[in-house]
């Protein structure tokens, strides 16, 4: 194999600055005398999945200062503008401070006892009358590890239902399924060091400049230092990322499926692949095709082992013959010549090639397939598991990895890559939880879309939403909001501010946020970061894990949480850690994390972190002389999947001639419930706009800032036009952001989802556009 110990040492030298782990929590340098009396603590940033470290200065029980932590390996003291104003997210004037209970159309103040007793009685009644699958919990990739763990134990081990989902279903589920069906283990082999060490970066539909701000400035620095570095942006929209890229390749929506297949075709046709790597590490598979789009309720689609065909390399090559560059051009809009060029870039032996992607690939009606195809490129060329040369799936939430994925708060998952369908996994879990293995149902629970549709169908009686805002963020939103407004289910919402979800709740619980509690987050690069509580939550607000345990006590499940009040977070951690030991995802004792700015798992027996998985150079699970070993995959062989092109669920037509795409911008985060409370960020960007291509705008008589009506088959909204602004969609495309709580743009989105990951496609549906 290509990677030698020497390469690794070279890489280590290049990243010597990372030796900074182990720096204790101390006052930051440069703190002057005027700041005395301030106690400083460390915490990961509350917002995106990058995982910047921040220092939090507290005086008199209040945060008086936050700054980027110079000892943080990810950000080295920097922040983006959201992180700069991080503390303000906690100090909005309308923080929820008391439990509220619905009395008709009014929300009335209540005590915690009243609220929790009410929730327990509603859940108890539903379970007694309709069984445990009539209740659910909907959490978050912003839950701390401890919160997610408690929720999983409560729902799966206590109540006995797998109706537990995180909002990460809306963002990372496609990445997860592809990690599992390719490598047999979730989360990337590479890490952020690859951004410093590589020389070729191909972005598939990712606006990294705005969605992963600090990471992007790191990538650009590599480009500044090394003239060889090339950044290729393949997208449907010219963004701030495009502006800094070396090359922009315009692609039609859903065109990634065709373009990737055509690139692979060229690699096979011209024998540009790494035969030795393939022989040693790869098996070829073909899955189920002609999949539905999940538009009908309860539409079932599964790719069971019986549906999977093994292919020989020759059979695979034969199947790929039809995906010529010309065919790729016809579907993707990327010129055949460019497809040939990309194949040469991916296979250039003098280049360290990385693929980067996020929601453009994941929020896709064939998102798992696109993830699979990107892995195919890296597996066929052997450009994987080497410093500076990896596919890297970027995440969007601070603990989508640490909580939703590693703890496994999905309807099918258990901690550390285990699943509810597997009897051995249930047994292992029950053993650690100290419960009867039969308590954990083998049946997969409701995935997010079905969970909220089940409310409309009167099948779900109770749902508890923590730390997320689904009644703004779900697609085809009107149907789901109407069901909630009709009070078809008993809805509990725990949050820190009034949101578009709390307005539909029967009980609103005030939560503690970020450093008002203790916790652990895990970021994109497998980095686990811990922080302590630094200030009290306002009023009677309580942390989510307390809420869950108090509820459990009232459900007669208090015995599942035998933790001490003082050591709660540490004790949950140590219990959870048992799942990880020996799994290849080993975590360190709690104490270790209190002293460092995070460690990347698997943490080695000597306490050191792992930067690259599956390689003898770094991964403790790969013995000397084994080179690269995909030890989590069956037979140590990873899968190259044959995944053809299939069209999106809805495409533009005569009546709805435009593609509609949604996403993020730098100044605000998710549904804006936090950044919307920061006056400086509101001043910078006050509301959503609709981006149009200038020629489309001209044809429709729309000028910059004109009010424009956008209508889909599901909803209609008026937004001001933005033309020639920060981003410009390709002709025939319009784009808007989802942070603005006054504009429920997700009412327009189609609730089609990937049949394997059940992740909705927020990036593609058809709309009409006219001047309002």
């Amino acid at each position, binding site marked *: 194999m290509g990677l030698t110990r020497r390469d690794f040492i070279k890489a280590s030298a290049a990243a010597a*600055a990372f030796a900074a782990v182990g720096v204790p929590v101390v006052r930051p340098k440069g703190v002057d005398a005027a700041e005395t009396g301030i106690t400083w603590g460390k915490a990961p940033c509350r917002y995106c999945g990058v995982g910047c470290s921040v220092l939090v200065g507290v005086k008199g029980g209040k945060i008086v200062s936050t700054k*980027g932590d110079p000892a943080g390996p990810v*950000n*080295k*003291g*920097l*922040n*983006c*503008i959201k992180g*700069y*104003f991080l503390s303000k997210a906690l100090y909005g004037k309308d923080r929820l401070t008391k439990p509220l209970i619905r009395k008709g159309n009014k929300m009335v103040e209540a005590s915690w006892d009243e609220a929790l007793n009410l929730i327990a009685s509603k859940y108890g009644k539903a379970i007694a009358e309709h069984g445990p699958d009539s209740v659910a919990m909907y959490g978050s990739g912003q839950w701390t590890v401890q919160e997610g763990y408690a929720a999983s134990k409560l729902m799966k081990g206590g109540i006995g239902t797998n109706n537990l989902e995180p909002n990460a279903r809306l963002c990372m589920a496609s990445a997860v399924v592809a990690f599992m069906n390719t490598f047999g283990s979730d989360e990337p082999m590479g890490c952020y060091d690859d951004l*410093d060490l590589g020389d070729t970066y191909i972005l598939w539909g990712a606006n990294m400049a705005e969605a992963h*701000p*600090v990471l*992007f*400035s*790191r990538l*650009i*620095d*590599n*480009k*500044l*230092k090394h003239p060889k570095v090339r950044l290729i942006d393949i997208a449907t929209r010219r963004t*701030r990322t495009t*502006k*800094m890229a070396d090359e922009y390749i315009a692609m039609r929506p859903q065109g990634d499926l065709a373009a990737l297949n055509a690139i692979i075709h060229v690699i096979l046709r011209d024998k540009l692949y790494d035969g030795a790597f393939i022989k040693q590490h790869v098996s070829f598979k073909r899955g189920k095709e002609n999949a539905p789009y999940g538009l009908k309720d309860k539409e079932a689609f599964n790719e069971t082992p019986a549906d999977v065909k093994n292919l020989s390399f020759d059979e695979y090559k034969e199947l790929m013959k039809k995906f010529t560059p010309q065919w790729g051009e016809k579907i993707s809009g990327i010129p055949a010549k460019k497809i040939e060029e990309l194949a040469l870039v991916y296979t250039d032996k003098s280049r360290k090639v990385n693929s980067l992607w996020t929601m453009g690939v994941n929020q896709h009606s064939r998102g798992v397939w696109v993830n699979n195809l990107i892995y195919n490129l890296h597996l066929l060329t052997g450009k994987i598991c080497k410093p500076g040369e990896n596919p890297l799936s970027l995440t969007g939430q601070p603990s989508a990895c640490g909580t939703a994925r590693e703890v496994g708060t999905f309807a099918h998952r258990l901690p550390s890559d285990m699943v509810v369908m597997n009897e051995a996994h249930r047994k292992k879990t029950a053993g650690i939880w100290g419960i009867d293995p039969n308590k954990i149902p083998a049946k997969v629970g409701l995935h997010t879309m079905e969970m909220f549709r089940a409310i409309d169908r009167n099948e779900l009686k109770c749902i508890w939403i923590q730390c997320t805002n689904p009644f703004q963020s779900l697609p085809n939103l009107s149907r789901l909001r109407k069901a909630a407004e009709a009070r078809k289910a008993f809805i509990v919402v725990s949050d820190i501010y009034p949101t578009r979800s709390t307005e539909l709740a029967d009980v609103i619980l005030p939560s503690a946020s970020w450093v008002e509690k203790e916790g652990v987050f895990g970021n994109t690069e497998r980095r686990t970061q811990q922080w302590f509580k630094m200030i009290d939550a306002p009023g009677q607000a309580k942390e989510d894990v307390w809420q869950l345990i108090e509820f459990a006590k009232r459900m007669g499940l208090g015995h599942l949480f035998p933790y001490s009040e003082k050591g709660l977070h540490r004790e949950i951690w140590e219990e959870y850690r048992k799942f990880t030991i020996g799994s290849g995802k080993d975590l360190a004792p709690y104490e270790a994390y209190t002293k460092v700015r995070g460690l990347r798992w698997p943490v080695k027996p000597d306490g050191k972190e792992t930067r690259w998985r599956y390689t003898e150079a770094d991964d403790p699970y790969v013995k000397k002389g084994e080179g690269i070993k995909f030890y989590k995959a069956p037979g140590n062989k990873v899968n190259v999947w044959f995944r053809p092109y299939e069209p999106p669920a809805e495409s533009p037509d005569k009546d709805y001639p435009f593609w509609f795409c949604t996403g993020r*911008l*730098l*100044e605000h985060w998710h549904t804006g419930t936090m950044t919307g409370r920061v006056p*400086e*960020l509101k*001043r*910078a*960007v006050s509301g959503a706009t609709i981006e149009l291509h200038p020629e489309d705008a001209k044809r429709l008589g729309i*000028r*910059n*800032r004109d009010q424009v009506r956008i209508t889909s088959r599901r909803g209609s909204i008026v937004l001001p036009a933005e033309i*020639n*602004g*920060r981003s410009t969609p390709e002709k025939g495309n319009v784009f808007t952001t989802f942070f603005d709580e006054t504009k429920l743009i997700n009412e327009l989105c189609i609730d089609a989802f990937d049949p394997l990951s059940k992740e909705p496609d927020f990036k593609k549906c058809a709309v009409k556009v006219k001047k309002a």
Partner: protein
Amino acid sequence: MGDETPHTGMSRRQFLKGSAATPLALMLAGGGVVSVYLRPADARGFTLRPPGAIAEKRFLAACVRCGKCAQACPYQSIRMAGGEAGVGIGTPVIIPREMPCYLCQDLPCVRACPSGALDKKLEDVEKVRMGTAVIIDRESCLSIRGLRCEVCYRQCPLIDKAITLEARHNIRTGEHSILEPVVHKEKCVGCGICEKSCVLPKPVIVVQGLVEIQKDSYDF
């Protein structure tokens, strides 16, 4: 400056009505309230006038203080100056930090001006020259300090023309880049959207009066 700008014919007049802007008489009655917000001139005596304003001295003579430009402004960006403006009392000003000029493509303020104080020959918004943005406090600018801010750049209506981002290595961290907003005064219209959107309490980017472009060759 105004008379140096190459203006051509007039575009279709189309402005939004219903502005609650204050004409002179009303303003005098309740001037106290308005003047709280006013920064009619900066330290160097610069007053930001609506698009198309002719040179300041001639502007003061030409403007009839009718307030029609303010009434025509759909964003209420144009206000009428109060007593503290001295001879400029009742003339239209823009205070970008409160409400910048959003550069309506049909320039309704210019079309509304009956006196020629706003030059009707102006029809291309990119040719507007009200002033120019200047980063006045580099030490405080978050972007120049290496943070990912660049709000002024992304909000600039002439993004990548009037403000560009220049990337350079960040010595402080050794592995990030500084993305510095750089204003190009030959393209900047002086609308003040950057000043409005700067996230710092005292904006580090502000609109100042135009200065002549000075060459780097010495022409005797």
